């Protein structure tokens, strides 16, 4: 089909998709981004490629930190002009198609992409920068195996030699995938979760970890030297550049967000944005679609956290340990969360021993049993509204997994 006809078809598809999205919003079924995108793709199957065409494009993927890193990188990219980004969190092709439609055709695209759709994005358009944060167990009932995702990434990257890959040198699965690219910027972004990388993603033998360093005991897969890193007290180090230990100070908390910011800075640098300009812009990001929000308003420092898998939980527990506040934890097991709750047992809840927790969500009983075996004091309250009332009354931090997080925000009246 001629390009003009393809574009005309996309215009028609967009009108239909917008109508579907509007209806979905009217019916209170969420933002309507995904349904709009599905309709558009149904009418114009090449919609994703057409909407990506002719823009600078950066995409961000990984199990944890996608949304925050994307928000940080988008803030940096805005210093140079308009940006198209999927900041409502719809990170599969349908949601991305819709998000791209909201902005001018030439705007820089900064997109978070679900781990499973990285190859689809790489084949739909010329991607300038691909940021790969980490890969660990999440929704195993849907994804089956972590290493299969790594292998699909590797194949997609090998077929896109013009793309610059900004990759976490500390994660063996990421390194395995990224090293198939001729243009890799290695970042020492850390890894708190080595369990899914005990056996080499390349050959299956044991990976030997020695402090921060690691290498396969059989094949040549090993930790590459990182050009970008961050010191223990948060100073940026870039090989061959004088950045003078630039302090990475952000509006979002935690060491893991500092390393996310280093990944975003390396990506911004790859698309020609100066490090200082990018970092200045990033400090304005304080909450990402509710993550890290002060949950009871500005009069309290209790926060709302999203945490949906063991590696993510390790970061959040680190933040919870910085205060003595009690906690409300809300757990669901819908399709988008993974139907299997056994991951709760990989979370080191033992670190919250002696603290009091309210367990809520549709899988509050799985959570309560897990917490009791971790010697955490538990009150179970299946009703979310009541649980939130209790939590507000004694100023608790709130942690929820994916669909539970959305429900918490709706119950608090801060989201549809």
């Amino acid at each position, binding site marked *: 089909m001629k390009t003009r006809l393809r574009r005309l078809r996309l215009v028609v598809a967009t009108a239909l998709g917008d109508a579907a999205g509007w209806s979905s919003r009217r019916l209170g079924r969420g933002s309507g981004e995904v349904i709009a995108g599905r309709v558009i793709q149904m009418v114009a199957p090449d919609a994703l490629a057409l909407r990506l065409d002719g823009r600078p494009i950066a995409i961000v993927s990984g199990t944890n930190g996608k949304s925050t890193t994307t928000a940080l990188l988008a803030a940096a990219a805005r210093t140079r002009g308009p940006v198209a980004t999927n900041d409502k969190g719809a990170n599969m092709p349908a949601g991305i198609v819709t998000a791209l439609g909201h902005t001018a055709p030439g705007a820089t695209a900064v997109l978070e992409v679900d781990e499973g759709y990285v190859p689809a994005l790489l084949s739909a358009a010329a991607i300038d920068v691909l940021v790969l944060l980490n890969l660990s*167990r999440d929704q*195993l*009932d849907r994804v*089956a*195996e*972590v*290493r299969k995702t790594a292998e699909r990434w590797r194949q997609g990257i090998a077929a896109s030699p013009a793309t610059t890959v900004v990759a976490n040198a500390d994660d063996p699965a990421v390194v395995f995938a990224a090293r198939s690219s001729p243009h890799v910027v290695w970042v020492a972004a850390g890894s708190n979760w*080595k*369990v*899914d990388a*005990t*056996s080499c993603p390349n050959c*299956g*033998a*044991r990976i030997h970890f020695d402090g921060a360093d690691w290498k396969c005991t059989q094949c040549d897969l090993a930790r590459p030297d990182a050009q970008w890193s961050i010191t223990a007290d948060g100073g940026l180090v870039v090989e061959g550049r004088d950045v003078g230990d630039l302090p990475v100070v952000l509006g979002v908390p935690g060491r893991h967000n500092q390393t996310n910011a280093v990944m975003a800075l390396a990506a911004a640098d790859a698309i020609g944005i100066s490090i200082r300009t990018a970092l200045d812009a990033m400090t304005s990001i304080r909450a990402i679609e509710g993550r890290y929000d002060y949950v009871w308003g500005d009069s309290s420092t209790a926060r709302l956290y999203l945490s949906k898998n063991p590696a993510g939980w390790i970061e959040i527990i680190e933040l919870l340990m910085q205060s003595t506040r009690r906690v409300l934890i809300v757990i669901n097991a819908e399709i988008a969360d993974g*139907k*299997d*709750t*056994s*991951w*709760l*047992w*990989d979370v080191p809840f033992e670190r919250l021993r002696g603290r009091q927790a309210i367990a809520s969500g549709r899988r509050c*009983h*799985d959570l*309560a*049993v*897990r917490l*009791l*075996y*971790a010697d955490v004091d*538990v009150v*179970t309250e299946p009703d979310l509204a009541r649980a939130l009332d209790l939590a507000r009354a004694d100023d608790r931090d709130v942690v929820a997994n994916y669909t539970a997080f959305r429900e918490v925000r709706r119950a608090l009246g801060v989201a549809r």
Partner: protein
Amino acid sequence: MTRVSAVRIAVVLPELLGTYGDGGNGIVLEHRLRWRGIAVERIECGDAAALPETADLYLLGGGEDRPQTLAARELRASGAINRAHSRGAVIFAVCAGYQIVGQSFPGAEGDEAGLGLLDVTTTVGAGPRAVGELLIEPDASLGLPLISGFENHQGVTAVGRDARVLGRVLEGVGNGRPERPAERKTDPGAPTEGAVAERVVATYAHGPVLARNPALADWLLAMIVGPLDPLEHEVVAATEELRRERLAATRSRSTRPG
């Protein structure tokens, strides 16, 4: 029965065989003894060459294909679990661990030999991966209530003459059915789940299964310490709630039309 020394529970290669929260089984067993005032030591063993041979109970969990193959090779080379079992230790194995304690399973490079502790043989199922809630009615001789878990595997496991099935599948897939009739060493008619032999208990149910099924946990512990007093702890009521919720959710799905 009085024991002078602490009960020793070995969690075997948790980095390779712990994909589905199976480390939780060790946490559950440890606490159920400690809360009863029985001394216990839980040992996480990441190195097969240094696996203790004097533990009372060995736990093996689920794992992805390559880690499973690696674990089987390391455990065969070590021989520690086989020696411990012949000395009287109890083995509880889940999912990939279930396949490993059997005769053979589909490894990363073709058929892989297991530890041969259980007369079961696993082949690749022709159907889709078995993923979902698993509800098991245990064999009546075991005297156990319904077992609730979650399964996620591709293997089809045939139970041989020297083992018996753990139970009958009420919801889910469990052992599945071998495609080639020759591999059906026994055909009890109904879909079966898991396998049991002398001091070896194995199942496809994770969840982790001992958190959802305290009677199964205590049954394993009783093999080591003898009859146990009822547990007095908040976890008893919380687990009853969890079982009520899971059994209702699983059954409502299995009785849904279509």
